């Protein structure tokens, strides 16, 4: 038996023993995932047992080095772990932005001491992170951000406002882009800084969307004092002062990769199983075809596109594991995933007709077709709009000239 076969056998046995039955229902909605953090309370005993078992193996962050709370798995081993987990439809033991976005950036740019504190905090589910990037005046043109960060000797002083901070109201720390030099060209005066959300002067206000309740918030910084360091070598700034754009770009690639492949996005009622849903709602004609020929064609085309997309995620992962990194092609996955997700929920609304457009006594019901359809409009805006992704593909993949 090869080492990998051995690993697969061990992993399968470990999952069989330690993944509770109740945790084998997949990561369907954000609500049934384990997010961790200071405010976190396990939703069930099974969820707690599954998290603790994974933590002990380093499987909350399987590819991170052991000293930072991971299991140090190779890409091949990590793929096997994912396959085996998917095989029994197991939930992820822990999910959050720390794992998928900040972690990879810290691994690339952090000091040993920063990694020790923050990566381990993430791996252990102790700290829930949120992302402070966008501002009211800095959306697609993110580098024009204006949140002001002044050097006050032993501390930084921060004033300004962030927007679209997902889950800021229930997060413990924020990784934030701030302006440390207002005179330099816009990309050269930005710093990447880590801030405790419990700091004095931070306030948070949730945003109501067209879909109703949302995880998005506005975050205000009013004379917030941030220490230069949280301990020996453990600075609050990641990378160099005024060079935060490099860290931000690295992190955005991970974010796009995540948005292009993360199951909650594709699980948000994309095109899968549209056909059977339509057959149930609309019915079939005498020849056994959906009794709405135009809609039938659209559904089938969407299912074909969805299938090709899913295979492309698989192929690009295989290529990455074979040593050909995804790079800017992650923008293709992000673009395709967002458009398909919107398409899927649009078709569901079409299938549901006027019934799907009906709301409850308290407004749009959570997780209803309408709720998902409205919320999904955000997918081609957040994490870099569809138009920004197309710009990136043009410039970085196709190398088309700049204006």
């Amino acid at each position, binding site marked *: 038996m090869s080492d990998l076969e051995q690993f697969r056998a061990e992993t399968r046995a470990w999952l069989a023993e330690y993944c509770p039955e109740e945790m084998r229902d997949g990561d369907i909605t954000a609500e049934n995932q384990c997010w961790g953090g200071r405010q976190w309370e396990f939703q069930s005993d099974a969820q707690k047992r599954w998290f603790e078992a994974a933590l002990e193996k380093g499987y909350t962050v399987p590819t991170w080095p052991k000293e930072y709370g991971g299991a140090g798995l190779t890409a091949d081993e990590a793929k096997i772990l994912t396959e085996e987990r998917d095989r029994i439809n197991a939930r992820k033991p822990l999910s959050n932005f720390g794992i998928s976005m900040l972690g990879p950036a810290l691994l690339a740019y952090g000091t040993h001491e920063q990694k020790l504190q923050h990566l381990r905090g993430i791996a252990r589910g102790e700290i829930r992170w949120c992302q402070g990037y966008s501002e009211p005046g800095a959306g697609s043109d993110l580098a024009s951000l204006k949140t002001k960060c002044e050097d006050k000797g032993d501390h930084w002083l921060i004033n300004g406002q962030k927007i679209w901070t997902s889950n800021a109201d229930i997060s413990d720390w924020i990784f934030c882009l701030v302006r440390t030099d207002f005179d330099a060209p816009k990309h050269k005066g930005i710093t990447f800084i880590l801030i405790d959300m419990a700091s004095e002067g931070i306030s948070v206000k949730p945003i109501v969307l067209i879909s109703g309740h949302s995880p998005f918030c506005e975050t205000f910084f009013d004379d917030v004092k941030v220490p230069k360091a949280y301990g020996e070598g453990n600075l609050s700034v990641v990378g160099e002062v005024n060079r935060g754009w490099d860290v931000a770009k690295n992190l955005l690639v991970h974010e796009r990769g995540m948005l292009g492949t993360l199951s909650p996005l594709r699980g948000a009622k994309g095109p899968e199983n549209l*056909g*059977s849903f*339509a*057959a149930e709602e609309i019915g*079939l004609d005498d020849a*056994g*075809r*959906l009794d709405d020929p135009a809609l*039938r*064609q659209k*559904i*089938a*085309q969407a*299912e*074909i*596109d969805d*299938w*090709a*997309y899913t*295979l*492309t995620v*698989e*192929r*690009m992962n*295989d*290529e990455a*594991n*074979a040593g050909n990194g995804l790079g800017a*092609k992650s923008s*293709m996955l992000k*673009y*395709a995933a967002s458009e398909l997700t919107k398409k899927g929920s649009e078709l569901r609304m079409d299938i549901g007709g006027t019934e799907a457009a009906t709301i409850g006594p308290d407004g749009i019901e959570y997780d209803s077709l309408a709720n998902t359809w409205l919320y999904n409009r955000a997918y081609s805006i957040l994490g870099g709009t569809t*138009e920004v*992704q*197309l*710009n990136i*593909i*043009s410039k970085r*993949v*196709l*190398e*088309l*000239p*700049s*204006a």
Partner: protein
Amino acid sequence: MSLILTEEQEMLQDAANGFLTENAPVAALRKIRDSKNPDGFCRKLWKEMADMGWAGIIVDEKFGGSEFGYVGAGVLAEQMGRNLTASPFFSTSVLGATAIQHYGTDKQKDAHLGAICDGSTLFALAVDEGPRHRPEHIEFAATPHGNGYKLSGAKTFVADGHVADKLIIAARTSGEANDPSGITLFLVDADAAAIERTHTPMIDSRNAANIKVDGLEVTGDDILGEVDGGYEALEGILSAGRAVLGAEMSGSSQQAFAITTDYLKEREQFGQKIGSFQGLQHRAAHLATEIEMTKSAVLKSLQLLDDDFDSASATCSMAKAKSGMTAQLSTQEAIQMHGGIGVTDEYDVGLYFKRVHVAQQMFGDAGFHADRLAKRSGY
């Protein structure tokens, strides 16, 4: 199985790319077209391809093939799609070889597979009877006669039918015109006196034939597969054809796009490269994404044919649909983004546009396969 090529398959790809760009580029297709070459391909070149093992690419080694499977055939077809290479590869080495290898008797395999591998016998598949692909709609009649059958009827768009030595004909032995059961495949000599072939040159500079058969007498030995159960074999042959056509169209999409992006980087208007205009950039980026999606779909269908041939039908349909839509978009955009020269005969993008159109129509366009998928999924 990983969704990437193995080292061996990558070597085949490099070899095919080198050979075809050298010996069978788009200029060679123009020459064949402009000289009104009656074969529609170069026989000497076909012999060279056979000598390299391409003609027997899917055939088992014991019959003289190179046993590279459908992924191997797709790798070659993709490079042929890039170069618009005209050859009997598709009709003989994909359709003919699949028919004999998967559905032939031992005797038929011994008799024909070697002659496919060495390039000496050309095959053609006669299935459609009207302008649109409808493989269940078979009226071509096989009526019992003595110990065998008598064949009579007409077939349209038999690709390479004008040069084929052997024809595989789908005929009705029982049932009604749209009934999948009751179809039987016959393997017959193309030059039989009862067969009248009319050469039909196509818009893509490839060639086909309309075929009329009037009372051709055949025996049980000429049957390929099961009597009345020929639709299953036809499905298998068509699935292989659809996946490989998908690979060819994927190659054409990629090359038409490469020509176009080169042009976007070089052509100037309003004092700047036209590739700097966002209106064109976003369309190019969308198309690049579709091309990546298509590559995955095509490779998956080819791998499945090698892995579990009988279960590949739906996947091959989806690959054909996806590659067809992408190829159409790629070649339409190629013409539009080139502007005036895009519609000149001198420029190559028009040739890609024409080839892709015929490949789309062949064995079902995207709408046909979407319909099949929906039916199969119960809606």
